[in-house]
């Protein structure tokens, strides 16, 4: 699975292709049928989705034109490699989205399901990946999650409606655009650097005292760092930055994202 998330070209194909709601639905259904019973015919598709055979056939033709499915001599529908990628990406998005809405935001299950269905084919891989990581972090620290949820519950509904910074805010759209151009793989961090290698800092993730301390010590965008040594026990590490030596734990180094190009 992770290898597929990391495959850049797949995502580009997925992002640029116009994937309609129904096409996504057909694709995932074919995948499910094949997974469950080993084959999928147009008849099975129509039966499963509760549509006419004609409608299912037309949809299959469209998918064939996109190069996502093929039909073998026995009239069995097969997912092509790109088709499989798209289907599993949609599937993943759906699951992540539903988990996020229901488990984290506390949206009722029915609403979460409906919204996740609506969003599954629109969500970019980056956002899906980011959500995935966030949910994982929150699930790992239930007290934090409870705290967040309690705080969220305190804020009255009308606060959101009254605020101009709702989803149509241009700043948010800008952010979304930024993400589209960002590389899909998780960025390399200072903790991943090999001893003796240099790199340039892209940004420091996170918030709070450690984040600020890293900034204060001169770990900022564009600064060149070299990983000098790793402690004999494997942690912490010694780096050289701005003409002096600094030590930090790997957990702290993971907050420092590097530019992908190493020198």
């Amino acid at each position: 699975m992770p290898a597929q998330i990391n495959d850049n070209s797949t995502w580009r194909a997925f992002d640029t292709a116009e994937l309609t709601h129904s096409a996504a639905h057909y694709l995932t259904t074919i995948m499910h049928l094949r997974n469950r019973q080993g084959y999928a015919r147009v008849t099975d598709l129509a039966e499963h989705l509760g549509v006419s055979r004609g409608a299912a056939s037309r949809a299959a033709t469209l998918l064939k034109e996109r190069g996502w499915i093929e039909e073998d001599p026995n009239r069995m529908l097969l997912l092509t490699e790109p088709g499989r990628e798209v289907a599993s990406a949609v599937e993943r998005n759906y699951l992540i989205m539903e988990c996020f809405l229901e488990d984290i935001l506390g949206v009722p299950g029915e609403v979460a399901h409906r919204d996740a269905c609506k969003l599954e084919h629109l969500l970019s891989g980056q956002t899906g990946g980011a959500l995935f990581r966030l949910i994982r972090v929150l699930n790992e620290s239930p007290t934090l999650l409870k705290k967040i949820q309690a705080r969220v519950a305190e804020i009255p509904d009308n606060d959101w409606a009254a605020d101009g910074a709702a989803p149509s805010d241009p700043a948010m759209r800008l952010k979304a655009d930024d993400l589209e151009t960002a590389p899909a793989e998780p960025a390399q961090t200072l903790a991943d650097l090999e001893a003796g290698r240099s790199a340039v800092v892209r940004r420091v993730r996170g918030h709070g005292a450690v984040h600020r301390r890293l900034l204060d010590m001169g770990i900022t965008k564009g600064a060149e760092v070299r990983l000098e040594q790793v402690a004999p026990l494997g942690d912490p590490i010694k780096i050289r930055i701005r003409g002096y030596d600094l030590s930090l734990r790997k957990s702290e180094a993971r907050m420092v994202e590097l530019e992908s190009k190493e020198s």
Partner: protein
Amino acid sequence: MSEIETIDRSTVRRELRVALIGNPNSGKTSIFNQLTGSNQRVANYPGVTVEVTHGSCRRNGVDLRLVDLPGTYSLTANSPEERIARDWLIQNKPDVIVQVIDAANLERSLYLTMQLAELGGRIVIDLNMIDEAEEKGIRIDRERLGARLGVEVVGTIASRGEGIGELLEAVGRAGGAAPLEGTSVFEYGEDLGRLIGKLMWRLRLAGESAGSLPHRWAAIKYVEGDAGVRRWLAEKVDGGREIARKTDREIERLGRGAGVSVESLIADVRYGRLAAILAETQAGGAAPAAPLTTRLDALFMHRWLGMPIFLLVLAGLFEFVFALGEPLSHGLDSLFHWMAGAIQGSMADGPLRSLLVDGLIHGVGGVLVFLPNIVLLFMAIGLLERCGYMARAAFLIDRLMHKIGLHGRSFIPLVTGFGCSVPAVMATRTLEHERDRLATMMVIPLMSCSARLPIYTLLIAAFIPLPWRGPVLLTMYVVGIVLAIGLVKLLRLTILAGEATPFVMELPPYRMPTWRSVWQDIWSKSALYLRKAGTIILALSILLWAANSYPKKAVHEIDASPAAAAMTAAELDAARHAEDLAYSVSGRLGRAMETVFAPLGFDWRVCTALIGAVAAKEVLVAQLGIVSAMDDTSGEAGRLRRILAERYRPLTGVCLMLFALIATPCLSTFAVMRRESNSWKWPLTQFAGLTALAYVLTMAVYQVGRALGMGV
């Protein structure tokens, strides 16, 4: 004082309040020592262990009142030290701020300068260790740098006392100059600038209530997420909550648009500006690592050799402090014994003699006996710290320490604890963050100190069969360590909870320490110990002596008993002594404690001995000897062993060892804890907590042991 008369008083002030600020390892304290000599006094701040040193000197008829603030990298308070430094500047508004900068580290240091300039005031920059920087090929155009920043820049080499005169001149000149306005020295670009500007205006519009902080500085700090300023805005400023709400929304929007936190945008802008300033004023670029430092680090932090070398250094330190300190302590002890003997010989028996010999001399001896260890330990730590190895030691062991919730720097104090808790608690000074320091201090008494050893050896010899003696002794040490680890975890979850302190720490280049600075360390630590902890130890010692001696028994039962006739004079004396102790406050207390300690298997004799152990752990042995009517405990360990083995069961022996390990840190530790934590809360918590833990654990062991029929 004719000097003063020749100076025009209207332009020159007679007194200037000067604050020294700078990054850790910038040589700030050396400069301070050069300026003030021994004319120093340490000030504590309530609730924190951080200290600020004050000093003074006189120059051209002007009194300079200097203060050496804790080292800091930034004016955003990330730790208590940084908060103290910053709050001191804001509250006291010194006439002149001197920032001491390691000239080889100009870039990072100027980051602090920018924040000082934003705060406003009269600033002098002291480029220290210019010789070292020049060796690295760094040349700084001081005039240009000064012009660019709008401050005066001087250069010094503190270790050799060079440039101190010029620094003083510059401070004098700055004192008469107009202060920096703290306004638009540095611009933050369009978006950030608008955000900061808007908040600045909102603060300005809030009126009087927002007057306690410079607006622009407060605005920048707020946007940087400074907790102190955020609290200030919410609590002190009228309508502050509303301002905060609006600003937070803008901060969030800006951050979202940029894809990074606004704090890092600010840091980016600052370092960007600095790059421009550096390009104009510094030749040589970013400093290369000193070849010596690189080579030494390759050795000391080597994958295979690093740890063995570290253990060797540690063993060396331990040997140096305790093996070398032992004969010295012993010598002091003999000296006091000799004094006691002399007084005993020349004075008639009576309460005054008893007070002098057993109370005062014993008490003073009890204070001074730690001094050799403290002097040696701080000599060793001072050398290691100043040559740069201490930071490497922390680097090597941090992974282990971090796992149990401590910091790499906790290790050396903890290991020192196996020698003696008193210097160990003092050694926690090397920990930068208060929470780490307190957590380490709290568990140090669980490291079996050398005074526990006589207890262990006596009881193990009395109760444990030969093949098991070694393992049991080892177990005692291990139990202490395991309990310490558990206790740290507990502390971290309760009273010392909070975000783990970062290990983002500078590894300073290796340097030859100057003896002068090491002596300064030793002197100040020893003086502090004697003055602050020594007095408490002395007072408590006398109190304990009184508890052991009063009330006096007028007639001894043994004299009337027929058994007395068969006893030697020494035996008779010992028996009287035992009666005395039983009759004293301690003895009565021991009897009163008997009911409480019965579930632990301790009778009143053991309880009385435990009261003695509060003075010092090894007193437990002596006190056991006295209550057992031993005439001379030192030469007759074998007899005491037999008496104990006859009177008690092995289970009681084990329980007593366990209790002596965990319970009641000795009063010297208590006194040092009080002094180092700067509060009564921590030593009292430690005393009560450890005693309660000891009680519960020992009771559990005794009851389970009895139920299983082990050692009874």
